[in-house]
């Protein structure tokens, strides 16, 4: 453990330490509530398995829609888990403490977003091949699906964070969040699902990845700023 240092607002070291501490804190909270770890996966699994039930168990039919279904489910799973991102902190006052930190809010918000992705996005990515198998996705498309999800889910977390930050002070949540976040996420969904479908038809997909990467870069730089601004407004 490091010695008490006198605080120098925004020095790199203390910013880095605050970043790490925030990341660690959110991960510890998630670990303690084991649900948080299990739930995104379970939700993803359940939603994906609703489709064969609702649509048809026919392999040919399913394989045609599988890419879309996996992607839509990933989107919904990510969005549902967003609710936890700032809510508890808002209710117990931790969010005020975060806003009153002398460290740049950008990094603290980024740390929270990364933690959220590690808890809810990454497991979905890891689990996706299994579900793709269950939905008869052609095996040549597996890697594309995993990779698009790997690039796409962080974007969902980052965009989603803006929506949660805007709505954290409101009484009713859940749905208003969805109404704000889902439209913003459509490009990622379209590109991601299309890449997987294209691979199934043997089409080139370099373009899709370039696009997804560009969106991710944009989201990484801009979204935490928007989230920070939104948090300050919500806590007012």
């Amino acid at each position: 453990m490091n010695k008490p240092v006198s605080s120098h607002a925004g020095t790199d070291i203390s910013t880095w330490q605050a970043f790490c501490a925030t990341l660690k804190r959110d991960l510890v909270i998630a670990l303690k509530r084991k649900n948080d770890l299990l739930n995104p996966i379970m939700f993803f699994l359940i939603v994906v398995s609703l489709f064969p039930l609702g649509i048809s168990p026919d392999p040919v039919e399913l394989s045609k829609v599988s890419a879309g279904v996996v992607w839509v489910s990933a989107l919904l799973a990510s969005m549902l888990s967003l609710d936890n991102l700032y809510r508890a902190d808002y209710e117990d006052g931790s969010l005020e403490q975060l806003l009153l930190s002398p460290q740049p809010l950008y990094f603290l918000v980024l740390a929270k977003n990364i933690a959220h992705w590690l808890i809810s996005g990454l497991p979905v990515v890891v689990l996706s091949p299994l579900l793709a198998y269950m939905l008869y996705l052609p095996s040549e498309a597996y890697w594309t699906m995993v990779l698009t999800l790997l690039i796409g889910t962080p974007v969902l977390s980052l965009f989603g964070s803006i929506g949660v930050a805007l709505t954290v002070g409101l009484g009713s949540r859940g749905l208003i969040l969805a109404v704000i976040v889902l439209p913003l996420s459509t490009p990622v969904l379209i590109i991601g699902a299309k890449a997987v479908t294209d691979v199934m038809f043997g089409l080139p997909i370099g373009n899709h990845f370039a696009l997804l990467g560009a969106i991710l870069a944009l989201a990484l730089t801009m979204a935490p700023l928007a989230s920070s601004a939104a948090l300050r407004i919500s806590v007012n």
Partner: protein
Amino acid sequence: MWLWFSKLGSPRWFYELSSKWLPWLYAAMIVLMAIGLFWALLIVPEDYQQGQTIRIMYVHVPVASISLACFPLMAVAGTITLVWKMKLADMVAKSVAPIGAWFTGLALASGAIWGDQIWGTWWAWDARLTSLLIQFFLFIGVIALRSAIESQDAAAKACAVLAIVGAINVPIIKYSVEWWNTLHQPASSFSMDPVAPNPPEVWVPLLIMISAVYVFFVIALILRTRNEILQRERRSQWVIDLVSREKSV
């Protein structure tokens, strides 16, 4: 420049100035509407393919083009709200959201009616249609957020953030949707051919209708904003004076 800017930011100044503009705008709208409608509905020849339904174009295109302009406008107003904390900008932003939603809804509806006539379906997952639908959702999101947040100041800033984020995304959405659907959709039957191949007797009235609807849009925006001004400034002296003057007349 700065003086002008800060003057523009004063709701009262805007209210008084717009009082002077409004009669002119009404006149312009009536004249343009009358000419445009008369020309479009009665003079323009039937289309050899589409028959009478071509006349829907004179509503659809102006409405659609305005609905596209609304989001950027809202984002600009939002930026001004955030950066210069200008109250008037937020009043405009607040007023433009429902108008934008309505125009987007009208564009969807008029398009759907037209589509039913010539494509045989009210709806298709075509690029333009889909991206307009998503933009409609975004408008609803902004309106929902505004009505959900109680504090006026917080609502103004929150909606400004959402409008800016949305405005960055609208082109991305549009692009991704356009590019998504080119594979599956036969371009010919769904293409919204530019009016260029058409003769001037078709596009001149269209231009007139576009300007008429634009003037209508501006009027609606000004009226809503004035309403908002009166509501927010209802306790300031000039509004009280104004109301008592109106009453005595």
